[in-house]
């Protein structure tokens, strides 16, 4: 049996090598299809399917809160809530709390901003992972105040300590606090919920059992992500049922914290699902798209094989005449298809290796688990399955058709091939399917492109041209009495000196600070509006709040619409002026003048009133696709934050060229101050749209492949059909047909198939478009202009693909009609 198989393989290889053009086109087509599918599947597998690299990952869950009253989801929990859940949910074996932060690493050369996480002592135990060197946290570590001991990542150990095993017991300075390294995590360990762009490098314990009464014991200080492990045999549904009971009890016990109308409730979901977040639909769309490319590739190769079967009809008939059974012939033809698929798959795997690594780099910024993308064994298994599947899919029907030779007819004929009606119909059906699938892909890519254009056309609300941005974070030591920036005056002094230093850099026109740059959500503040009490069922009034230097709006090019700007203050902190944006003015004082009105942060009476002195234009603060929300701006001279961003208006076309000089200017004020995320505002905007841009680029790439492959397919079928019909065309020419008649005949025949394919594709695209709805902005998934444009584009390409062989058909020598073979 194996002997026969290998003989067929050898024959197949020889046969394919005898037709190098056919083999090259088929192998390349399959390589593109299989390669693209493998590359995308490597992403899908690594992100969506591969089990998390922790012990028994199916037992791990994430708990976050949701508010059914406001629709808010994925809200972290507070320390008291953590305690309640740990004690109140019996399905949990253990529960860890995680609080991601970023922190200044100093004392080891250049100051650096790194990602860190404060975690409950049992965090690594819950995950089932232990440090590779040194020790894990103990309950005693949690008894101390925050900090003092840390575990570092393998990468940080390598980068900053050169992999020195003697690093255990050494001290590093994190936010000016000396901390002792007690452990190093194994290579490849990834923190839960880590983004590819900012890997976690340090873990420190939270003193959960000895909480800071000013912060950790506050029930609505909701900062912790909870990671739980289920007891063996218990399910996530059981945990969720217990959480529901708990939330009802807490709402009853703490009606002030959990008002009934807000519907606070903790939600448990598999940790893997929480890690993946909302990228699943986009990845599945891409996988579907690339699957379509492979389908088109298969249709092309099937068409080529059908044509080849016609040419080989005589050989097959001869084999039949010599006693070969139909089953034997099918097996031999299928073996040839599989040989082709293996060749295409091999080349595709090389393409995938390159594509997978390129994709990994491309999506690293926004995709969770992007660092895990690789051609792993399961991915290779998928490729092997694809090879087998494609070999059978594109090979079976041509093999069945090819093996059904008309023995007498073929052998009697002197070898002139003729495509039988079933084969012609099959080829026509394949062309229709190719066009339909290509149109679906083009429609998807077109929708993404139009959506992206709309997104890029939104009014940012500021002028991003020649604007440099950067981030600063003033260290917050655990011992607040020791900090260099513990008071507002110290912080304000630093920011003002930094601004003065930066403004003195040649090429800088102006500079301002803001607590959070646009396009990055800041978080809502609850508001009380003077003289307008909240109705019983009215949702709380909120606004985003940002601290700014008074010249921020001028530096950013944000217009002042009414009133005046923030005052440049001396030492008077009594001035509580704020600016609000247009959306807030229209929402809370519709039809009235907001200037002079007063608001207070929070729902209580313990905060001072803030007076609205001006209204500024709306800015896209949350994201490009999110409409502006209510926003208020206070002066950083009144209240300052540890974290501030700086915006620098430059005279240079490329503001990033001033990045080093601006950083140096800030360091001249404080050499231990890390300056990070130095980039132009245009790059900030680019990053804010990266996810959509990448989806769009990949879809456009796949649609381009589909367009090319389907054009090749249509051309191939028409060229083949035209060759088969040379005699008929010669007869028509002899009967008086002119070149235009022949052109019309061939193009008409091809375009009839194309039109059927376009109609089928439009219907398919319309049905599938719902999958894209969540990724679109500013257009509907049924946007008629997009559908019309892509149909016209594909129709035009198909017209060219049919016109070329049609043009050749006009040059058929009519003398052929007189030849009798």
């Amino acid at each position, binding site marked *: 049996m194996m002997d026969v198989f290998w003989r067929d393989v050898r024959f197949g290889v020889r046969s394919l090598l005898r037709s190098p053009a056919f083999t090259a086109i088929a192998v390349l087509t399959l390589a593109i299809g299989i390669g693209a599918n493998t590359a995308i599947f490597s992403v899908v597998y690594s992100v969506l399917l591969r089990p998390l690299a922790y012990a028994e990952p199916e037992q791990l869950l994430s708990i976050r809160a949701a508010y059914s009253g406001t629709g808010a989801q994925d809200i972290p929990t507070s320390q008291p809530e953590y305690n309640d859940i740990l004690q109140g949910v019996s399905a949990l074996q253990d529960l860890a709390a995680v609080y991601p932060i970023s922190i200044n690493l100093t004392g080891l050369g250049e100051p650096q901003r790194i990602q860190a996480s404060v975690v409950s002592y049992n965090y690594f135990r819950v995950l089932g992972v232990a440090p590779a060197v040194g020790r894990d946290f103990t309950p005693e570590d949690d008894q101390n105040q925050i900090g003092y001991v840390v575990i570092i990542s393998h990468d940080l150990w390598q980068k900053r300590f050169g992999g020195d095993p003697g690093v255990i017991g050494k001290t590093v300075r994190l936010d000016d606090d000396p901390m002792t390294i007690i452990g190093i995590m194994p290579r490849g360990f990834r923190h839960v919920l880590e983004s590819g762009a900012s890997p976690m490098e340090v873990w420190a314990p939270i003193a959960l059992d000895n909480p800071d009464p000013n912060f950790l014991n506050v029930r609505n200080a909701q900062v912790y992500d909870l990671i739980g492990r289920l007891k063996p045999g218990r399910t996530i549904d059981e945990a969720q049922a217990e959480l529901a009971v708990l939330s009802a009890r807490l709402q009853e016990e703490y009606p002030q914290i959990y008002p009934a109308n807000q519907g606070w409730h903790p939600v448990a979901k598999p940790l893997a699902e929480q890690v993946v977040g909302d990228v699943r639909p986009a990845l599945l769309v891409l996988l579907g798209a690339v699957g379509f490319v492979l389908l088109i590739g298969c249709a092309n190769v099937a068409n080529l094989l059908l044509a080849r079967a016609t040419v080989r009809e005589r050989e097959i008939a001869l084999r039949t005449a010599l006693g070969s059974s139909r089953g034997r012939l099918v097996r031999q033809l299928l073996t040839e298809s599989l040989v082709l698929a293996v060749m295409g798959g091999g080349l595709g795997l090389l393409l995938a290796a390159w594509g997978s690594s390129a994709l990994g780099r491309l999506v690293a910024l926004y995709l969770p688990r992007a660092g895990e993308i690789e051609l792993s064994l399961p991915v290779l298994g998928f490729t092997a399955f694809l090879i087998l599947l494609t070999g059978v899919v594109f090979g079976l029907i041509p093999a069945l058709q090819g093996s059904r030779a008309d023995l007498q007819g073929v052998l009697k004929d002197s070898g002139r091939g003729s495509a039988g009606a079933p084969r012609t119909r099959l080829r026509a059906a394949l062309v229709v399917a190719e066009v339909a699938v290509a149109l679906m892909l083009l429609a998807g890519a077109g929708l993404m492109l139009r959506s992206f254009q709309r997104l890029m056309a939104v009014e940012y609300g500021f002028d991003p041209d020649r604007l440099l941005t950067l981030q600063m974070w003033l260290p917050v030591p655990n011992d607040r009495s020791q900090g260099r920036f513990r008071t507002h005056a110290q912080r304000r002094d630093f920011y003002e000196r930094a601004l003065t230093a930066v403004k003195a850099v040649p090429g800088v026109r102006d500079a301002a600070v803001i607590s959070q740059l646009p396009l990055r959500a800041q978080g809502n503040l609850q508001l009380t509006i003077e003289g307008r009490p909240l109705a019983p069922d009215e949702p709380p009034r909120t606004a985003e709040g940002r601290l700014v230097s008074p010249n921020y709006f001028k530096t950013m090019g944000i217009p002042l619409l009414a009133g005046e700007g923030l005052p440049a203050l001396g030492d008077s902190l009594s001035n509580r002026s704020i600016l609000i944006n247009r959306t807030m003015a229209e929402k809370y004082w519709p039809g009235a003048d907001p200037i002079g009105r007063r608001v207070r942060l929070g729902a209580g009476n313990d905060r001072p009133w803030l007076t609205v002195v001006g209204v500024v234009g709306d800015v896209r603060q949350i994201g490009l696709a999110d409409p502006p929300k209510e926003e208020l701006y206070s002066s950083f001279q009144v209240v300052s934050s540890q974290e501030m961003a700086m915006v620098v208006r430059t005279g240079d076309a490329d503001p990033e060229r001033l990045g080093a000089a601006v950083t140096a200017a800030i360091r001249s004020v404080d050499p231990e101050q890390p300056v990070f995320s130095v980039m132009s505002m245009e790059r900030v905007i680019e990053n804010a749209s990266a996810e959509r841009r990448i989806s769009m680029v990949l879809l456009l790439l796949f649609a381009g492949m589909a367009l090319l492959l389907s054009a090749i397919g249509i051309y191939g079928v028409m060229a083949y059909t035209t060759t088969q019909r040379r*005699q*008929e065309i010669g*007869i*028509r*020419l*002899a*009967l*008086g*047909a*002119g*070149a235009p*008649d022949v052109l019309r005949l061939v193009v008409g025949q091809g375009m009839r198939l194309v039109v059927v394919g376009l109609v089928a594709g439009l219907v398919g695209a319309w049905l599938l478009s719902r999958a894209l709805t969540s990724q679109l902005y500013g257009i509907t998934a049924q946007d008629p202009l997009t559908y019309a444009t892509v149909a016209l584009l594909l129709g035009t390409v198909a017209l060219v693909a049919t016109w070329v062989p049609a043009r050749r058909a006009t040059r058929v020598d*009519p*003398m052929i*009609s*007189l030849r*009798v073979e």
Partner: protein
Amino acid sequence: MALAIDPLIRLDGISKIFHTEEVETHALSRVSLDIRAGEFVAVCGPSGCGKTTLLSLLGLLDSPSEGSYVLAGEPVATLSPQQRARVRCRAIGFIFQAFNLIGDLDVYSNVELPLKYRGLAPAERRAMVHEALERVGLLHRIHHFPAQLSGGQQQRVAVARAVVGKPLVLLADEPTGNLDSSNGAQVMTLLHELHAGGATIVMVTHDPRYVGRAGRNVFLFDGRIVERPPAELEVA
């Protein structure tokens, strides 16, 4: 069908030379021939003597290497392919040895084809197709496909297609070559009826049975017209 212009066809010193790589083949050498309107001319000769080449030149499927060709008073030897197509469409009807019906088209559409290329209106075409099919006795097979007809019927459909546009001349290339003797005889009878009705027919054949049945025989040998028939075409 006959035309007042006489001769209808005048070939004067026609030669056709084929060049393949470095070989030059003289398919026809200085052939001169007049054919009057209403004549039935048989072009005879052994295989390779140039009969088909002569027919392709007469049918404007090809152009001569030298010499002049006047059809119905118009010089046509140097027309462009597009101009030749227009003349073919209006003035020439072809009957092929292998029938050359188009398998995907039914009888009606096959016969209609030359009229479509001529740009006639559908109603006019319909009337002419019906008349032609009636003439060959196949009106009852109008919606059949070629594969559903016998060889003789197929050739009669081909004759209908050749005469449907009332061409100046019918060119028949071995019209009985693919038929058995009975069907061959029927097709020849049909051609004689057309000739009797005034049609000008030029028939290429190497079948001795039909050589003597044309009004005039033209013998070709090695690309030249000869006075006497080659031995194998001597009518018994």
